[in-house]
């Protein structure tokens, strides 16, 4: 269930050195998006696509069910989670793992037609 989330925590993205405040009632990804910040790739926002995968290296998060195609039970135990499904329970440090992996697109954008 959603919590009112008066309390906010600091989320530090080690890749970019940036941080943002995230409410206890918001997901890490939702909190970032709400402030118009960037750093974690935004995909489905539903724990399904895996592009928002992060490694929480310090701090506590509370996570809802995430796609096992992207986060195994072992991953989850090590703090590898989907940012769209996790809410902070303390200040957080995280490293971004997920990315938007383009298939044919990269080629199409870079080179156009042959």
């Amino acid at each position: 269930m959603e919590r009112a989330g008066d309390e906010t925590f600091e989320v530090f993205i080690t890749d970019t050195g940036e941080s943002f405040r995230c409410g206890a009632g918001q997901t890490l990804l939702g909190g970032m998006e709400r402030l118009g910040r960037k750093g974690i790739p935004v995909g489905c926002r539903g724990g399904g696509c895996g592009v928002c995968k992060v490694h929480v290296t310090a701090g506590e998060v509370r996570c809802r069910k995430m796609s096992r195609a992207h986060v195994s039970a072992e991953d989850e135990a090590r703090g590898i989670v989907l940012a769209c499904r996790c809410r902070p329970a303390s200040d957080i440090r995280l490293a971004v793992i997920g990315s938007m992996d383009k298939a044919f697109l990269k080629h199409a954008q870079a080179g156009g037609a042959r």
Partner: protein
Amino acid sequence: MAMTGVMRPGHVCIRVLDMEESLVHYKDRLGLQEVDRDDSGRVYLKAWDERDWFSVVLREADAPGMDFMGFKVDGTAALDTFEQRLKDAGATTERIPAGELNHCGERVRFDSPTGHLFELYADKDYMGTMMGLVNPDPWHEECCTGMAVQRFDHCLLYGSDIDGTVKLFEDALDFRLTEQVMDGELRVAAFITCSNKAHDLALVRHAEDGKFHHASFLLGSWEEVLRAADIIGRFKISIDIGPTRHGITRGRTIYFFDPSGNRNEVFHGDYSFYPDYEPITWTAEELGGAIFYHDQVLNERFLTVVT
């Protein structure tokens, strides 16, 4: 045109992480009606303008995505014929007994080069619409709730050998190519139809097989697409892009995600495709406009996020 053989997409089975929140999404937001549940926990849904018993089946699972997509054929003789033609074309087929899905007759399931499971069936129980078949009203407010989608329309699927899947559908099931995107000699997207719609199935080339990009539902007007966008805003549904216009198929559209990250589309409008038509080709350097005609730029998320 005479519509024989494979008539239309008839159902899609979608995996969800949490059934209850998914039902809020598919019932209250899209406006599908719950029509049954089975012993394995699957929930059956139908759109207000569909006559057969169900078109969407939700199954709770550990990972979202698509279990299978089914097409209705015109009779059991056609089912037998297509089964043989699928085998001849190299597909592995399997007969699934009547009743394995509630209200659905025997199904012929087959695999595809892109790693997706499809199936054909000839019979499904008739439920009808609330308006009936005699002097019907155009619609009833009791069943046109939420976005009030009219029907399940098509899917877009991602996988590597899209040429193989297109060929299977052309050779064994008489589908036709309506539009394609070419990157030089390489076909990167294909739109195929069994009817005279601009597409009943779309495929995009992608490194990973068996991926689900979206299930799409038909709306009655552009105004209804905007109204769907209002519902997306009100309930803070995760949006992907839109409302906008596709160059490909000309659809007026909006994309969003269900609570498990499966993408949905609601759209209005395409054009009629006839068997004598040549396919339309888009070139990779114009891909931006082919996909999103107004912005003319590619949205990374649309092209890369799948379940």
